[in-house]
């Protein structure tokens, strides 16, 4: 479900709730207060319970297979991603200390289009979040960057262009400027041949 679909679902249900509340409020005009009306709404309890159970059950069944957690996929590339107040560093090599962090944060990263990339995300100080936005500003996905833990975020980039990583976990006074970019480019012929070979295997 895209964010817009989620919004529309919320909007439709929300408007339905407003309509029902308005209807109920209007029904009080000149009402005598019959017990039958109270009983009538009480009888809706069971159908409402079953309806909610069914709707939420379907939503659960539809979305659980789509959770973003790694499910044993083998990535085409591994990128180490580290957060540190108020910068990110990305590198194909592990980033274990401040020196490696400074070196990696100054080196631009390029990824070939269509490849499954595993970001190994962690932090050298406080909690950050590693959120990847595509060239159109759409949020593709995210994971937390936490000191002492490595979270594995798998993303495939089908659209070439400049991607942006923003920090989505509040991490201090310059939180809103913490960012890094990387480029997704068309694969070179040599990389394409290697990818094709890998996929045939």
């Amino acid at each position, binding site marked *: 479900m895209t964010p817009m679909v989620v*919004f529309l679902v919320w909007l439709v249900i929300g408007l339905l709730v407003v309509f029902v509340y308005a209807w109920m409020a209007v029904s009080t005009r000149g*009402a*005598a207060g019959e017990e039958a009306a109270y009983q009538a709404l009480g009888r809706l309890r069971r159908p409402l319970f079953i309806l909610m159970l069914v709707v939420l059950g379907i939503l659960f069944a539809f979305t659980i297979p789509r959770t973003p957690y790694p499910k044993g996929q083998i990535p085409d590339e591994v990128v180490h991603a580290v957060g540190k107040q108020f910068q990110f560093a990305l590198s194909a090599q592990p980033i274990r200390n401040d020196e490696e962090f400074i070196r990696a944060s100054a080196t631009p990263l390029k990824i070939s289009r269509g490849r499954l990339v595993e970001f190994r995300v962690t932090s050298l100080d406080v909690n950050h979040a590693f959120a990847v936005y595509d060239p159109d500003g759409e949020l593709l996905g995210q*994971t937390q960057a936490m000191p002492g833990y490595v979270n594995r975020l798998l993303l495939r980039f089908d659209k070439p262009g400049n991607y942006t990583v923003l920090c989505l976990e*509040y991490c201090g*006074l310059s939180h809103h400027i913490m*960012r890094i970019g990387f480029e997704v480019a068309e694969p070179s012929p040599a990389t394409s041949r290697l990818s094709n070979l890998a996929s045939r295997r």
Partner: protein
Amino acid sequence: MAEMTIGGAQEFAGEQARMRALALVWGALLMLLLPILGLLGLFMRAYQSQILAEAAPDVSWFYASLTLHGLGLVGVSYTVSFIGMLYVLSQHVRLNTRVLWLSTGLTVVGVVLLVINFLLRFAPGWYFLYPLPFISAGGWASVTADIFLVALAVLGVAWLLWELELIRAIASRYPLAQALGWHYLKGNPSPELPPVVLVATVCAIAGVIALLAAVAMLIFFLVHRFTGSMVDPLVVKNLTFFFGHVLINLAMYHGIGFLYALFPIYSGHAWKTAVPMVIAWNCVLFLVMFAYFHHLYMDFAQPGWVQVVGQIASYGTAIPAAVVTILGTLAQVYRRPVRWTLASSLLFLGTMGWAIGGVGAVLDSTIAINFRFHNTLWVAAHFHTYLLVGLVFLMLGFVAHLTQELSGVPERVGLARAIVASLLLGGYGFVLMFYLSGVHAVPRRYALYPFELEIGTTLAKVALLFVLLVVLGVLLYLIEVGRRWFAAYAALRAS
């Protein structure tokens, strides 16, 4: 109180009078703190909209405001709703108001410490995610972290004290099984259990567990403070969100507790405990303990089954809310001669905000959806819906009822309608801008938005217009209910 002596009855009446005074004081605190903390919210939206331009103060004031706004309003929600619930509960059990006053005093001390920290620009956000309070990159002085830990400890003691007093008061009249309504499940609805007793019991048990988690969290913070070594951030994160999630849910449930008792005064139809209500609240007691996992969906290091349990528990808490409380509220209203006043309107509409915010929350508690909504303004959208146009409506409804009941001052109908209309239109317009920002993946807790997400700035500007409507509604409320409050205070002193 079947065996109560005449002296006992007088003492009980005395406690009820003291409870009225306490409730009136908390009503005043709500009318004082809500506008101040709300204005911090207005300042933040103005900052994000960039209308302050050159006049914008240092960004540290934005994040200090963010911290106090969140901490303050969660605290106000929990405490005022708790007192509202105790006020109606005091008809059924004998509460020791000395303990409640002591907790009130300690809460004021805690709040003063938080305000001092605000002036020192302490800004780790309202859920102060470990180890941020200690590692600020020069953002705030290290002494502020110490002040904050003292404030947390004081508030923890204050709230644990009154939760324990609540348990004592209920237990002195009802055995635990009866207070949880289990005799209804055996087909024996005798003795009749007032719904507020059931809700208060569930809240007190969950409240004590949440506060014990806060104690454990505080111990981890103190270990870091005194040893300087890092403790496990994932464990502390679990404790922090367990405490915070349960606390804010309890605030809503306290509101439902007094709704069950107060709304029938206006609808003329008693709201009685029945088997579905007992099942619902017992389920809530269980499910609320596990729903907090949805705050950690993006911590992929958590075990996968824990995340699935979080989704199930989050969905699960929505069902009793809709099937018992929302439907129950509608049944109270449908074709009944409801006496519509400021209080009854706000109580009724408060449940609507809870329902609409709940839909946004359920969607966000779906792991696959949260992957793209987590920490965007969608989160701020749904919790402002069930807090601002949900719980705040309920609390304002409670104080409007309380002051009317104690003062007997007649309501100005036109003013009451203007209050409801301003709060309703302003409140929903304001949260709608958050939802739309969330759809565009605008991050929450950003003082300024990056150029790619400029729509966040535009929507913040539109939101400001609606905030001004909310401000108008609150001002009118203060005029109407403030007048009643002074009359109620005078009447109470005279009696």
